[in-house]
């Protein structure tokens, strides 16, 4: 069975800007995949190339085995894209927009599915409102709805939660999760790393058009981030522990791999006569992974 998305050696330049540099990426069917990277890393360009909005200079892109240039009709039918920019057609109502979008994909009587999407995105009461009258958050929901009218097996969301309130984020992710559980492949980009950590089973990190990390979320966390014991003390720290620790204000961060190392560490501190004023245990998080990967310490360590 072909992968949901296969990107092979894709490069793209805009003038002298190398937006994509020999990107290789494969997303399997049913995955919830995160595409992360700082602004300008090339995420949107990669998505645009997949959607046929941008033509790659070299390499090939496939959606479920269909080349996005040679077999664009099949590829586009299988792909639903939520664009990053908040765009809308001011001439139409929400329902008209969705019916028209269905028609573009060759679907005639789509009201049942449209109603279901509206319901799931909390848009039912706005169905007959003109697009101009909607708030930014509501317009964003319609943009998601428009990407789903043709029930695409592969759904790509480009920063769908940028500038969006908490309620919509939760509604949106609950819905997208259900779609994922129903078998849809999901690819998302986001600047909220917590979101990616919670949702994505696998993550690629892009930097200056190159894939600089690609692994399961669990593996990335394990490789680039650790648990750590954070302590606020009266200032002192036994030299043996201080060697591995980072100090920030009154706080010391002591990394550890397994929980049974915590007790001996505390014992050493007690034995040295240091006073502990505050204590917490930090879990590995994607933010740390992201920062370390982007600092380039692990470049070339793509697996």
């Amino acid at each position, binding site marked *: 069975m072909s992968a949901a998305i296969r990107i092979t050696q894709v490069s793209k330049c805009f003038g002298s800007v190398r937006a994509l540099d020999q990107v290789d990426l494969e997303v399997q069917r049913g995955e919830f995949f995160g595409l992360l990277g700082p602004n300008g890393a090339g995420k949107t360009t990669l998505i645009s190339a997949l959607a046929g909005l*941008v033509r790659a200079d070299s390499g090939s892109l496939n959606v479920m085995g269909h080349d996005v240039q040679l077999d664009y009709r099949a590829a586009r039918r299988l792909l639903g894209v939520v664009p990053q920019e908040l765009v809308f057609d001011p001439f139409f109502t929400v329902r008209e927009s969705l019916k028209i979008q269905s028609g573009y994909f060759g679907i005639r009587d789509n009201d049942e599915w449209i109603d279901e999407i509206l319901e799931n995105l909390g848009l039912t009461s706005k169905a007959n409102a003109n697009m101009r009258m909607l708030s930014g958050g509501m317009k964003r929901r319609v943009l998601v709805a428009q990407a789903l009218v043709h029930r695409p097996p592969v759904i790509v969301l480009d920063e769908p939660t940028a500038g969006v309130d908490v309620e919509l984020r939760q509604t949106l992710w609950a819905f997208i999760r259900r779609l994922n559980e129903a078998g849809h492949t999901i690819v998302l980009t986001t600047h909220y790393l917590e979101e990616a950590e919670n949702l994505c089973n696998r993550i690629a990190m892009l930097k200056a058009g190159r894939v600089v990390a690609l692994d399961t979320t669990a593996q990335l966390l394990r490789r680039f981030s650790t648990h750590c014991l954070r302590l606020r003390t009266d200032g002192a720290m036994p030299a043996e522990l201080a060697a591995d620790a980072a100090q920030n204000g009154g706080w010391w961060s002591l990394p550890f791999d397994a929980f049974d190392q915590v007790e001996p560490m505390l014992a050493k501190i007690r034995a040295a006569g240091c006073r502990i004023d505050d204590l917490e245990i930090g879990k590995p998080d994607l933010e740390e992974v992201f920062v370390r990967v982007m600092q380039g310490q692990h470049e070339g360590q793509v697996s």
Partner: protein
Amino acid sequence: MGHGFSTLFYKEVLRFWKVASQTVGAPVLTALLYLLIFSHVLAGHVQVHGVIYTAFLIPGLVMMSVLQNAFANSSSSLIQSKVTGNIVFVLLPPISYLEFYLAYVLASVVRGLVVGAGVLLATFWFAPLDFVEPWWILVFALMGGAILGSLGVIAGIWADKFDQLAAFQNFLIMPLTFLSGVFYSVHSLPPFWQQVSHWNPVFYMIDGFRHGFFGVSDASPWLSLAVVGSCLALLTVFTLNLLKRGYKLRA
């Protein structure tokens, strides 16, 4: 042609119909004003091909309205979609470049014909009109609308900003339509300008169209058909090639 094509065509028609007072009403009013002013100034002084001036003027105004509105429809729709970014809605679906072209051009033709019919309805009270060879009327209205609709697609794709589109309109479309014999017979021009007019394809659209009403014209309707048909074929090939390459639409 699939349902994607018919939906895009329907959407393009709906788009202008929803604001019909601007897209249909206003140009009909403009044409009516031209008629009132020019016929007031010139009627009684001028006859063309043995036809009283007001009657001669009406088909010219109708055709000019068809052409200008066909151009306005595709060009303004495309530039608006590009500037606001909602062009992605038609670029993401599996719509072929041929379907894209036909949908925009046919919707332009519809807008042109609706406005043209409106102008005819508003003006035919003012002078006796014949419809001697109605097929020519229809053929030239359709082909002229399609040509300007294609030019609108080209301009809408090429222009990045509204003022670039305005330049295209002011420096190409307006001179071509105004210097085409809408308001006069080119035979009444000095020889030099007659020559120039014969290089203007819009002259043949108007002349052929007018032939359908009166059965007389500056040029043979067959010659006009050949010129207009060749222009349409050339523009179609050119525009399809732009769209196929994704010029300015798919970076």
